[in-house]
Structure formats: C-alpha cells, structure tokens
C-alpha cells in the first residue's frame, strides 16, 4: 500500500503529550487521509500510534515502548528504532515496519496487514496469528507462532524452542535453524502456490535478493484437531 502524501506534520513527544498525538491520529479519517506524521523523541513511550484507522504514514524516530501500532488498520507505521512488547498486536490491516529489533509478542493475534521487523524478534512472535503476514529479518525467540491460526510467518534467521506449537493453518517459512518444533508442528514441502506467497512477501519486506528456495516450510500435522481415543490417557 502506497499512501499519497499530501501534508507532513511533526510532533515532538518531549513537547506534546502522547495522548494529544494519539487523539489527533484518531480523528475523522477524511481529514487524516494522506497525511504523513513524524514523531520525534519517542524515548520508549508505550502505546504510540495505536488504533489508527486512516490512510496515515507515521514515522516514529527512535525506540518505541509497548504496543506500538497495536490494532492498526490501513495506516503505515515505521519505527526507526526498536519496539517493545506487542508491536502491531492485533493489527487488522496496513503495514508496520520496525527497523530495529522487536521485543516479545510482536504481531500477536494479528488478523491482517504486514508486519516487517528488520532485526530480531523476542519470544512468542506471531503468537495466535490470525491472518496477517509477519516477516522477521533476524531470528525469533522461543514459542513463536504458538497456536497460529492463519497467515504467513517468514523468518530469515533462526527460530527458538517450540516453534509453531499447537499450530492451526498458518504457514511458517524459516531460512535458518529451528531449535525445536512444538507439538503438532512439522516440516512441509513447499508447493508452487506457497513459494509464490513467500517470494511476494520477501519482495514486499525489502528482501528481494533472498532466494525463496533457501527456506524450509513448517505447518500443522493436524493431529490435535480432534479428540483421539489413543490420547485419552494424556488428559
């Protein structure tokens, strides 16, 4: 999504309270569409640019705290530093780009849109993913994609322990090593269709030079979908 920028506004969080900035960003969409917003001195503040629902292009010039760009719709949010826990949590659509690293639970429960993290992501990245695309340039921590239901999760580096535990229908592509797979997560053969999805995501996340064939795909073995009498002893 490319937003046609008609006006650029600057906010400095050392001067303007974050609540005021967020309230402005929550204004009537017709008055906000096409605006570019630059936020200086974020200094790790929580909840920057959460709940956006207009065609905005927001740039956060530094490190963001918890839940940055959470619940995003339509807007494009770029964080030039790192992001705290829960970046783009429950995103519905739009584009969130973290140029540094992201802490735990990045992209948790995200329904739609694209989350791109250039650095590493912490634990539980893309946990309970519900349809968004998440591309991590570095490695992800343990328990990532736990119970991920739908969407695509691309990891250019390594994955920690228990990747994709109890996964549903989300697709995981890992270029590096996986420390261990979670319950019911298994290696998959990449179909021509899935290769296309992966190639497209690599281009859209600034990794056009990376060969889609260098990834291993993972997904659900679907053995936990229904009660099985052989597992009765485990309950």
């Amino acid at each position, binding site marked *: 999504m490319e937003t046609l920028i008609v006006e650029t506004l600057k906010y400095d969080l050392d001067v303007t309270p974050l609540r005021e900035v967020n309230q402005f960003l929550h204004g009537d969409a017709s008055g906000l569409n096409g605006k570019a917003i630059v936020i200086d001195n974020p200094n*790790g503040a929580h909840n920057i640019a959460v709940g956006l629902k207009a065609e905005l292009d927001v740039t956060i010039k530094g490190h963001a705290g918890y839940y940055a760009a959470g619940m995003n719709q339509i807007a494009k949010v770029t964080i030039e530093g790192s992001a*705290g826990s829960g970046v783009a949590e429950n995103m519905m659509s739009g584009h969130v780009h973290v140029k540094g*690293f992201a*802490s*735990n639970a990045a992209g948790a429960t995200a329904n739609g849109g694209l989350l791109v993290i250039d650095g590493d992501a912490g*634990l539980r990245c893309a946990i309970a993913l519900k349809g968004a695309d998440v591309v991590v340039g570095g490695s992800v921590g*343990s328990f990532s994609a736990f119970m991920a239901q739908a969407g695509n999760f691309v990891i250019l580096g390594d994955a920690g322990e228990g990747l994709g535990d109890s996964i549903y229908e989300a697709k995981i592509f890992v270029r590096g090593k996986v420390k261990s797979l979670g319950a019911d997560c298994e290696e998959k053969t990449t179909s021509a269709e899935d290769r296309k999805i992966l190639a497209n995501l690599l281009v859209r996340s600034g990794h056009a030079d990376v060969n889609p064939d260098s990834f291993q795909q993972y997904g659900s073995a679907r053995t936990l979908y229904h009660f099985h009498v052989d597992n009765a002893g485990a309950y």
Partner: protein
Amino acid sequence: MCGIVGLLVKNQKMRDSIGELMLPMLIGMTERGPDSAGLAMFGAPVAADSRKFSLYSGVADFNWTKLGHDFEKHLSIKAKIEPKANHAVLTTTLSPATVKIWLKEHYPALHLLSVGQLMDIYKDVGTPAQVADRYDFKNFKGTHLVGHTRMATESAVTPAHAHPFTAGEDWCLVHNGSLSNANSLRRKLQKEGIEFETDNDTEAACRFLQWRMREGDDLETALNHGFEELDGFYTLLMGTSNQLALVRDPFGCKPAIIAEHDDYVAIASEFRSLAHLPDIKNAKVFEPSPKEMYVWKL
C-alpha cells in the same frame, strides 16, 4: 510489575555524576514500581581493615549519634557513623559477627541492610522520586549501582521488603517478577541454616544464591542451579564489588534492555529509563536473551 535499573560507569570522569545519571533511570520506572524504591551504590572503598554497615531505623528521628557513642564505649573502639535520615552507615574495623551481635543486643529494632567495603544500601517506601530525594541519590558518587522500584504483589510494602537484598559482603540483588516456589525454597534453605529476614519471594532467591555460593559455587554455577530451582518469572540484576550481572527466566516473562556504550553500561526494565543517557544514540541497545547470563566488569 517492578522496575530494575543498573549503571556501571566506565568513564572515570563521569563517576562523580553517577547519581545524577541514575536519577532519571529510577524515576523512569515509577509506573512499574510506585510503592517503594531502593539503591545499592558501590562507591570508594573504606580502609582495607574496615567495613561499612548500612543500617536502617523505622523511626524517622533516630538518634544515630548516640548509637555511635554507645558503639565506641561498649566495644572500646573508634567507629564512624554517617546518618542520612533514617539510614546510617557505620564504619568500623570490627568483624561483621561482632557488630551483628552488638546490634542485636543493644539495638534489636534496627535493620542491618548490608555489609561491605564499597556498597551502601538505601531502601524505603514511597515513590522513586520521594525515596531518591530523602537520601539525596542525586549526589551519589561511585563506579556502579543497582536500583529497584517496587510494585508489591506477594508480600507487604515495608522498607525491609523493598529491594535490593544482599547475600554476602558487597553483593546485592534486585528482582522483577514473582516466584511460585518461594515458600518451599525458604523451608529448604532454613534447614540448611540460612536465616531469613522477611517473607519476600526475592529474598528466597537471594538466599538460595547465597547458599549455593556458600557451598562453593561461583556466581555462574549458582545461577545455573537457580534456573533449575527457581520456579516463576524473574529478571535478576546483581551487583558485586566489581561487576553487574543479569539473567532472565527461560520464558522471558519479565523485560530488560541493555545499552552498552564506551562510557557506560546501563540496564533497565524498559528503554524509557535509558533515553536520557548521554550519547545514547551511539550505544549498542539490545534485549538480553532468556536463560543467558550477562556480566559486565569494571
């Protein structure tokens, strides 16, 4: 919740302003811990044959001068007493065992917060800004420090329950998180002859490490035993005479962020507490991995 901060100043010129550098770090963690705060400061060492004893009195107008006189009279020895509100630092050449017995006999209501050649501990209830102001944290000088802001979840809000805790001379620990097996750990350690001062879960972790080190473990081995024994969430930050050490639990439940710069190493629960540090833009900022030990030496 709780907030932790740590600062180790490598640039000699900046060591006189360590208190000033630290103050916004501690205040930045107010939302994470508004009910009490504490600081362990590693400053200039006392004479090689001496030790300092950080004391705390629950009474605001405690007569520290009288304590100093009593100490010198009863034990026929010179001592120095430096009061700061309801805290005081007593410096003497007598052994910790002798001092402890004397305190217990003559001033049983006093708390002995720490013993060492470098470290002073201040901790009290109140917001971080109030506590810092009460003890003039801003003007502290030294090489490194460990601080804490507390939001109590499992035991009472009292100065004794505030962090840091100590487990040996010039050794302290602060904790963000909660332990679910603190009571069973305490019972186990009490059988080993380890004494407890509070029912705080962090104290159980601290005494566990104290016990392991008493049994001959170095810090790293003690912490590896800790990964096996401590059940719960924790980011632990420890200070010793010449280093800071940090670990996060294997699930990474509690946060930490590190800034390594040529002039300093700064640690906090969140970046909010590091943003003001000089030239932070050129520091290497990163999140420590769970179940790994990070150590910075002076």
